[in-house]
């Protein structure tokens, strides 16, 4: 199949020309194949989130080009790129509208990338469909369709956001540490769900994580970033054989120093 995402010479510097100048991305080149499930790791400030946000159109890049499905979207604003993208964020509050009901949130997501018309916001047929889908999450949400999202727990909100991200099948699923704010048990559950959705629809995915175990367990390709560069890129059989120790060694070789970041989980 063709390359789903092509990134050429992407660079991004924050606070340019000030004492706080920080080069977040330095000349990133990356080709993501259709069907790739990429896990991304790296220390704080390595540029993982910035890379996802540049793909999503949150930040305009300083240089470089981003193509999704052969279309050059470098100059597209965030809302236009949403046609291609499903996104889940680290903060469970960020992916849903708290003041609206579960049903309304799902209905908004089902129309991702479509013109908003004066047709009714949630059709009668959608209700039953959403109830079934929520039932599959096994979080007891199917009986709370008309309840406000603001009353849900972080884990429930994150599972809902995930469902919203794939409700209209995205070309590319961007997961930005979407389990980092959850307790370990809930995180595992949401991650399980993530994997299930991705396998079921063969979704092309980029998943940032701080958890090395998750990065190794999931996906067919692993990227490690350091100081705005991709320093490790392993895939297929090589990735399957990879152990945590190998990762640490790879990191040391690539960065020239010991891994000292306590936010990077080794367990």
């Amino acid at each position, binding site marked *: 199949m063709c390359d789903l995402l092509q990134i050429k010479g992407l660079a991004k510097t924050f606070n340019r020309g000030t004492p706080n100048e920080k080069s977040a991305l330095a000349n990133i080149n990356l080709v993501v194949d259709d069907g790739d499930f990429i896990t991304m790791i790296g220390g704080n400030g390595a540029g993982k989130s910035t890379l996802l946000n540049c793909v999503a159109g949150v930040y305009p890049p300083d240089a470089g080009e981003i193509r999704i499905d052969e279309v050059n979207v470098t100059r597209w604003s965030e809302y236009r790129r949403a046609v291609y*993208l499903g996104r889940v964020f680290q903060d469970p509050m960020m992916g849903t509208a708290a003041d*609206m009901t579960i049903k*309304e949130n799902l209905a908004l997501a089902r*129309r991702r990338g479509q013109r908003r018309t004066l047709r009714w*916001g949630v059709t009668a047929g959608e209700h039953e469909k959403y109830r079934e889908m929520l039932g599959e999450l096994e979080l007891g949400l199917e009986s709370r369709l008309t309840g406000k999202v603001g009353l849900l727990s972080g884990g429930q909100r994150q599972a809902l956001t995930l469902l919203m991200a794939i409700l209209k099948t995205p070309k590319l699923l961007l997961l930005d540490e979407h389990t980092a704010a959850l307790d370990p048990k809930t995180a595992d559950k949401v991650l399980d769900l993530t994997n299930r959705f991705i396998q079921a629809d063969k979704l092309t995915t980029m998943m940032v994580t701080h958890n090395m175990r998750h990065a190794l367990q999931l996906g067919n390709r692993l990227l490690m970033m350091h100081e705005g560069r991709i320093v490790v890129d392993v895939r297929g059989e090589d990735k399957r054989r990879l152990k945590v120790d190998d990762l640490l060694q790879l990191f040391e070789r690539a960065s020239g120093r010991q891994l000292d970041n306590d936010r990077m989980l080794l367990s």
Partner: protein
Amino acid sequence: MGQILTAAVALGLLWSIMVIGVYITYRVLDIADLTVEGSITLGAAICTSMIRAGWSPVVGTALAFGAGMLAGLATGALHTKLKIPALLSGILTMIALWSVNLRVMGSANVSILRMPTLFTFIQRFGVSRYFSWIILGGLLALALVTALYWFFGTELGSAIRATGSNPNMVRAQGVHTDNMVIIGLMISNGLVALSGALIGQSQSFADIQMGMGSIVIGLASLIVGEVLFGKRGFYMRLLSVALGAIIYRIIIALVMELGMNPNDLKLFTALTVAAALSVPYLSAAVRVKRKPAGAARV
């Protein structure tokens, strides 16, 4: 006393349309929009000037609504396209409208005494002055609440509501949030100007100063409505803020009847709103204090 209450209810109904407009910006979009201070006068100025120039009150009222929408468009463009903070954008439009309103009226005020208004149409059927306000204001408020309930249930309306709740999420769902904010501000200010047009016709008079403090009156009515009639469902919420406008007018009529100096009215309203807005914070602070030492562990 009966006469005073009737007048309060009648005036409250005319203002209720303005309060519904304030609800759309303040509660739905989560923006405190000061444009209303100018757009309520704009509505009155345009409608009375048109009537004075011999136009039908229907045309004048419709044009007032359209002009209010343009005022909302100006604030929305300043805020979303030029990235000026919402509060300041509203103030800028409000100040600009002062000059616009003087241009429209040609002087500081316009009188349309004994000229036809929407209310004189109704009065022809033998209805008294205040009851003509109640009939037209009530019907219009009810029709608008119903129309807005429908609109905010559509895909477009849902997207506007979601923008007020979480713009990040809405952008990720492919909605141009700038446009949602602009549409919301346009509807809101259109309603405020419509209310101004009705108020101007009801008193057969428009005055450059009539919008002063109207945002505070709007907020006071909105809060009174929410406190008294709850927040159940969108239709009920719209209806309750409209009722809030009536209750507010009744409260004002009563305190005036009790001998309050009319000059103190704005101070009274401002204090009421300040008190009502600080209740959530104060009650939370009291709850924390009451907790016994050691129990504050999170």
